[in-house]
């Protein structure tokens, strides 16, 4: 166990599916050679096959008695490649009206956001929502425990899980073991790479890019045990933020406020208040049985806020002051005297 643990809460009722988080992370960390196909932050439409495709069926994590559950390696095509496009040919190739900005090298059949806005169910009762994911920086990290070289480390001071790339030899047991499939393999450098919870920013008191850049104001950041900050209140006090797939046994430190969708319609076309648009069993399959209590709490507090104007929980989720979402990691990056590397 680390001395302290950083955590994140993502409010699915505020997630716009806009991928600003995804792009913020990409631009900051994963543009180098070998990293092009990596998206340490993903947002997928749920229900869906996600990224990598069908990751929930790939195994990993732990059995209820704490044994490693076998997992399989995701293939690159299941993540989706960083397709290249024929920009040159389409605009300078002399093709006239036949110019086509085509994908070079074939016709992909999956990508990191392939099933965007699809979901499940039948019109007019289809349902879907957006699920952003980063590394869960688990308290019981399967990747750390899987590595035969001890190359995946969990930081003592804040619980951030990183790959020691000096030590990693690319054996990829971590990739099979992670049940969330949030470990990536750099095929150029032959090392595993993953979300680092923006530790260089954290070290300077700045929230991770995915959180700080989120225009939907979805993400709360902070230490798990900071009772004065939103994380503790949402996870422990109000218990409306839950880990994804708790049955995987890794004890994630990313928590989700479950989504509430519009009312569903009965067969006659009138509103049917009796059953929620997202079937309870689907949400339970994602967030465990406590999700139903969380939804009930949110509903009750929303009514209370509407009626009285008062609710600590709703005020937290509204986040009147943006900076208060970050548990003290609210420094503006512009004020940071960064280490500048000079020749």
């Amino acid at each position, binding site marked *: 166990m680390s001395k302290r643990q950083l955590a994140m809460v993502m409010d699915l009722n505020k997630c716009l599916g806009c991928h600003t988080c995804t792009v913020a992370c990409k631009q900051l960390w994963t543009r180098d050679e070998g990293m092009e196909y990596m998206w340490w932050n993903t947002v997928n439409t749920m229900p869906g096959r996600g990224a990598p495709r069908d990751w929930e069926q790939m195994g990993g994590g732990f059995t209820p008695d704490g044994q490693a559950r076998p997992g399989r390696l995701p*293939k690159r095509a299941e993540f989706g490649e960083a397709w290249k496009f024929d920009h040159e040919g389409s605009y300078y190739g002399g093709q006239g009206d036949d110019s086509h900005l085509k994908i070079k090298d074939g016709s992909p059949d999956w990508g990191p956001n392939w099933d965007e806005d699809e979901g499940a169910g039948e019109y007019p009762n289809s349902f879907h929502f957006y699920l952003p994911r980063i590394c869960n920086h688990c308290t019981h990290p399967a990747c750390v425990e899987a590595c035969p070289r001890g190359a995946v480390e969990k930081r003592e001071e804040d619980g951030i899980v990183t790959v020691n790339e000096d030590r990693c030899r690319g054996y990829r047991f971590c990739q099979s073991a992670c049940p969330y499939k949030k470990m990536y393999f750099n095929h150029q450098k032959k090392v595993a790479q993953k979300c680092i919870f923006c530790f260089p920013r954290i070290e300077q008191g700045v929230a991770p890019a995915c959180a700080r850049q989120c225009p939907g104001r979805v993400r709360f950041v902070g230490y798990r045990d900071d009772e004065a900050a939103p994380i503790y209140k949402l996870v422990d006090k109000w218990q409306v933020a839950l880990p994804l797939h708790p049955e995987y046994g890794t004890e994630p430190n990313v928590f989700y406020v479950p989504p509430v969708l519009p009312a569903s319609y009965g067969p006659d076309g009138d509103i049917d208040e009796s059953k929620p648009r997202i079937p309870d069993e689907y949400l339970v399959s994602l967030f465990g049985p406590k999700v139903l209590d969380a939804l009930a709490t949110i509903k009750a507090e929303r009514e209370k806020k509407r009626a009285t104007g008062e609710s600590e929980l709703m005020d937290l989720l509204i986040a009147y002051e943006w900076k208060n979402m970050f548990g003290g990691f609210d420094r503006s990056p512009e004020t940071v005297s960064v280490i500048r590397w000079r020749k």
Partner: protein
Amino acid sequence: MKAGYVPGVPLQGLLDAQADIWRQASSQVIELMGAPSGLQPTSAVRAQFPDGAIGAVKQVSVAVLHNGGELAFRLAWRDATADTGADGQDDVGFPDAAAVLFATRSNAPLMTMGAPGLPVSAWYWRADENGRGRQVTAEGLGTTQTVHGDQVHARGVYADGGWAVVIARSLRAQSAGAVAQLEMGAAASFSVAVWEGSHGERAGVKSFALGPLGGWHELVVDRKA
């Protein structure tokens, strides 16, 4: 077994696994066994590789030559797939690999890759780093570290359904680490290991040779040509 003395043959000559000198050298077929699942350092590895699932390569032909300055092992084994770890494919396979292991203390345990205070050293070749060898040392499972200071040369050729890999280093090591020190006329304890990439073998998941001397084989470095 013996390391034959071939004075005057330059290192580059030794590194050519298909050179005549190797054809003329005496070789020995050594049986390999899979590393035991129970000895794998993490439960994730053990879960993925239960007993019987490790050890795709069953035997390796070994020949050893030295030129008075450098000593070279030639390892050859049958392998239906050349797994070079080249990028661009789906690439869920792993690169084939091989190593020659040495006991740096006479009682260093082979099965556990050494133990604290009893290091095991190895010269290592991996198909995705073909041409560049690596010298490592370990004092137990999962503790392998690269040791700098000596150049290990390792070059493999895949032909006719098998690998032939030459792994060479100077007899005397320059680095201060716990690595093999060899000299003409002296004996050393060695073993070999092979990883079959298409079976997902990497790290401690490998075939290795279990010899008669506390697990080790003996190597005598010839003094005479």
